């Protein structure tokens, strides 16, 4: 058991702070037992240090292959492309920015000066709901009348075309009939006598 004010091994290993180190040092100068203990510790350390360090069988070194070290911007880009959530977030952020910029830079829709001027110059009163209905009905009636007229014209045109085609057919048929009749008369006149009598052919 040491009589040192602090642990003698702590002193020997220089683990005490300055004042305590000095205190133990002063104690050791006047204490035979502690000096002998310190001598044993020093001899033990000296013996331990007889084992030297070994050299390494081979050195260690790292090699930087540029193929596997792309530049920073490419690594960042690859990081984004390789991650669905990050890519989605980036797309949403870009879309938000585009909407914001568009909203801030787009001018407000201006009124059409000409239209406003005409109404004001005409002194027209405000148009009510009945007036609108009346105008709509008038527009519908006008449109229906126009459509009816066009339909009637179209029907009339079709009927005329059919009538002409029918007359042309009748004329062609009459000419055909007349042609056959004339042929029959000519044949009868030329070959009627040569016709075999019934019973001679057998």
């Amino acid at each position, binding site marked *: 058991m040491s009589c040192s004010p602090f642990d003698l*091994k*702590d002193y020997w*290993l220089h*683990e005490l702070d300055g004042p305590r180190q000095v205190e133990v040092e002063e104690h050791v100068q006047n204490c035979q037992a502690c000096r002998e203990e310190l001598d*044993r*510790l020093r*001899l*033990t*350390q000296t*013996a*331990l*240090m*007889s*084992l*030297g*360090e*070994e*050299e*390494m*069988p*081979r*050195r*260690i*070194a*790292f*090699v*930087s292959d540029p193929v596997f*070290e792309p530049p920073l911007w490419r690594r960042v880009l690859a990081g984004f492309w390789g991650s669905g959530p990050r890519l989605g977030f980036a797309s949403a952020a870009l879309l938000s920015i585009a909407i914001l910029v568009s909203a801030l830079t787009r001018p407000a829709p201006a009124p059409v000066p000409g239209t406003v001027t005409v109404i004001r110059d005409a002194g027209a009163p405000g148009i009510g709901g009945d007036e609108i209905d009346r105008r709509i009905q008038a527009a519908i009636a006008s449109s229906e009348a126009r459509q009816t007229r066009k339909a009637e014209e179209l029907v009339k045109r079709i009927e005329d075309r059919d009538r002409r085609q029918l007359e042309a057919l009748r004329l062609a048929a009459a000419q055909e009939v007349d042609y056959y009749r004339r042929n029959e008369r000519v044949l009868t006149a030329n070959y009627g006598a040569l016709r075999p009598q019934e019973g001679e052919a057998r």
Partner: protein
Amino acid sequence: MIFRAVEDADLIHQAARGAVEAYNLLVSRWEKRVYNYLLRITGNREDALDLTQDVFLKAYQNLRKLDDPGRFAPWLYRIAHNEAYSMFRKRRPETDVDELEPESVENGIAFGGSTVFPIELSLAVAGALERLSPDQREAVVLKIYQGFKFEEMAEILSCPVSTVKSRLYSAFDLLKAELAPIRTRGVS
């Protein structure tokens, strides 16, 4: 022209930005110490070399997580400690790590650098270290051979300072007893 030694912190900053050459310089400064630390706690050269490579690779991959470059050494040794114990667990998953013993002295640790000491002392020291528990041996290696402070050892080993001191001082008591006969026979 002013010459200034490049500090580890400078190299760490550059390596964290991807400067592999700076990291190689950093590795060259620390690889021998880390290798010998792993050699002492594993007792096998091949394992120590493989683990050293793994340690520096893992350190490079995590260098940006190191907030204080001044704490590089304990941070690096923490990785080394974890890698070594991870290897122990993989090899003998059902065995308590404390029960693991390194290879015999005939296979392993060299006695180089002891020209001023007889080989008998080196053999005795190597044998005495082997007879310590793995925790005690690692505490001695970190303190005597690597020169860490108690707080750094506690950070590396993930345990309180009181535990570090307990392991170390019990190891010293055993080593004193083991090595006393050699010293009294008068190696000098």
